[in-house]
């Protein structure tokens, strides 16, 4: 019998370590791929190499968080990619102009939060399927991005690009901040309520969780994260591109599913999703070093999504028989 060997003060840590143990297999796979990568490309174990590697990972990690957040709450979003584009476009058009660098950052954050919240209100209060609402939303957001900046261009201050995407691991530190922010959120009643509402909305409602408000908050935070990923991409490329975010929609779903997040809500963990994004990022890099053309990653993504859903489903079906 498992007794309460832990002291009551260690409850939080015990819950966390148990979640980590559940992901042991995933951690091993991620470490194996990382080692393979180091072996293929030893340059990664330098400040510069590590910085570049984490800069490639960072936007994917952010959009994966944006996606996983909603999937854990029982939703999904197809407007992640367009939001990344919009974030990049707003950054590239506002930073050089009236708003200045900080004003630009604030504008990106505000737009991301706002669009996310509006989507959330439509989904939660009108009870419409998130997948179709965000599909329609993705077209509208793409259109807005194209209106603001019809073709790649705009301006990002050089120092800002150097800060985020230079030879220092600033991106990695920002990722740690984002993860810390998530952990903080998940330690609030609202965060736990969001998780509970994903799997059992009726039960959560009866337990006093304001299910609709939590859903709107989830969409808003998701929008914020996606737009900030766009800000980073703009800094990385030094300009804005109204279509640059498109691959992120499927990428974010692939990474979340790879990390064990289920389509039906309440299944999986954010740390799993982040590991999934790291795994996907390393896979893409490894494929690149093995000489696959860049487009091969699209092929891989399609296979990964279907595989990540199919393998558990098939094993479950076989077990039933």
């Amino acid at each position, binding site marked *: 019998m498992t007794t309460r060997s*832990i002291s009551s003060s260690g*409850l939080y840590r015990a819950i966390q370590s*148990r979640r980590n143990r559940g992901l042991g297999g995933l951690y091993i796979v991620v470490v194996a791929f990382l080692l393979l990568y180091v072996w293929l490309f030893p340059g990664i174990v330098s400040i510069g190499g590590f910085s570049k590697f984490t800069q490639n990972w960072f936007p994917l990690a952010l959009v994966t968080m944006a996606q996983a957040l909603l999937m854990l709450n029982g939703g999904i979003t197809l407007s992640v990619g367009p939001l990344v584009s919009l974030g990049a476009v707003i950054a590239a058009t506002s930073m050089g102009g009236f708003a200045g660098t900080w004003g630009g950052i604030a504008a990106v954050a505000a737009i991301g939060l706002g669009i996310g919240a509006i989507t959330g209100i439509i989904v939660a209060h009108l009870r419409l399927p998130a997948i179709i609402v965000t599909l329609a939303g993705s077209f509208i957001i793409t259109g807005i991005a194209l209106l603001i900046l019809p073709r790649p261009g705009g301006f990002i201050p050089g120092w800002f690009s150097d800060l985020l995407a230079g030879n220092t691991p600033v991106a990695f530190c920002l990722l740690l901040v984002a993860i810390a922010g998530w952990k903080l959120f998940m330690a609030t009643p609202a965060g*736990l309520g969001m998780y509970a509402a994903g799997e059992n909305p009726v039960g959560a409602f009866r337990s006093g969780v304001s299910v609709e408000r939590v859903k709107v908050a989830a969409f808003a935070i998701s929008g914020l994260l996606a737009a900030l990923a766009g800000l980073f991409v703009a800094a990385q490329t030094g300009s804005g591109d109204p279509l640059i975010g498109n691959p992120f929609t499927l990428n974010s779903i692939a990474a979340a599913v790879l990390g064990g997040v289920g389509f039906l809500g309440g299944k999986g963990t954010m740390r799993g999703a982040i590991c999934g994004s790291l795994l996907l990022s390393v896979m893409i890099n490894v494929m690149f070093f093995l000489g696959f053309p860049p487009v091969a990653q699209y092929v891989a993504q399609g296979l990964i999504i279907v595989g990540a859903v199919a393998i558990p489903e098939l094993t479950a079906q076989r077990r039933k028989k």
Partner: protein
Amino acid sequence: MISSMPLLEARGISKGFFGNPVLKGISISLQPGRVHALLGENGAGKSTLINLLSGALQPDGGEIAVDGKAVSRFNPGAARAAGVAVVQQELSLASELSIAENVGLGAYPRRFGLVDYKALAEQVKTVCDMVGLTEALDTPVGDLSLGRRQMVEIAKALFLKPRVLILDEPTSSLSAHEAGILSALILKLRDQGIALLYISHRLNEVRALCSHVTVLKDGVVTADQPLAGVDAEGLVKLMVGRDPGDLFPTWEAVLPGEERISVTGLSAGMVRDIDFSARAGEIVGIGGLVGQGQEDFLLGLYGALPGSVKTARLCERDGLFSDVGAANAAGLAYVPADRKKEGLVLPHSIATNLLMPSLGKLTKNGFRDRGAEKNTVLQLASRLMIKGDTGRPVQALSGGNQQKVALAKWLPLDPSVLLLNDPTRGVDIETKREIYLMLRGFAAEGKLVILLSSDTPELVHLCDRVLVFRDGRTVAALQRAEITEEAIVGAAMGLTSREAA
């Protein structure tokens, strides 16, 4: 016993849904330090009463009073403030969260806006100790058995430090050991001055725990009295017994024909290891309290729920059906209980719904045969006495007529076995009468009818024999002469047939 000030009262409350009265001016009074039993058959209004007492529903008439004072808007917030906690039948847990996080959900202790895990651990430990949950508090609820989850649910209610605790069938998934712990806990809470309302279909538990009983029948209170001195048969008598009037047709049993269904060791969903056989020309009733596996039994036979058998012979065919289409082809038909969600495509027309199962049959050269379809619809409509345009959406019909459509759509296939899941639920008297006539007619034509019903008089007045389900097994198999409401309800409540007889 001197009655003190009641903590929570319903005073003459009424509640109806869509014009059907469910509760008709009933009163109940929950006193501190007393375990109050609430008994009643399926559909007597127990769930509605619980929802009213927990603020989830508002009464149409009458009032709810806390500490003797009427509360004008008794909503969930007011119920919480009054210290009312409910342990519902369906679990409200999230499986990936830990025991502690589930127990505290909605009432977490906070520090600087964050969940105070230290305080949470201490408070949860207290209630877990009370219910005998010894698992580590960080265990995800998904790793627990159903019974343990039920205990977490109870701990969750206790976490709110209730003054009034409502327990709706709390023992249905508990082991004997767990049920024992719960019983002791209930008595302890009672001694601490908490008012408890206990809903259970296990009469011996009720008698061991409760000192007062309210019995509901058809939305009215038929007994509100101390439990001492009332025996089990007396309780059953208080719940059953309605004058059927001329609702049911008179009929003669037909001589059963060849064997249509024969299964041994059937397990599917909740159903465990059932042996069953039935012949052409019979109406076999399936009774028991709601959710004891009756529906899974029908779905298992119908190939709609994966299951396993030792042996199975269904309509001259070996083994269970792999899908519904195969069952239809062999001559089985199923009418679901929830006609709006499972039986009909509501926005589609009456004609479309009537043709749904027979689409593949009414064809000419691979195309739909409009003439044959029209004839079929006309015939069915006249047989059902559905007047007017069959192009209207089926949702425009009354509940009774909708149910007739859900049943009649199978007739063009001429099924030899009809599996009916509560076909008269929410149906008006006139339609009920028609459906009963149809059912006996089917039996007379040599069809086998398996009638699952939550309405006990139906089982008594229509069936050749009745099986009573409890916890996924059959606990009684009553032959024609033995079928009485007392026997069915008694078996459903877990009395042996000797006690109930």
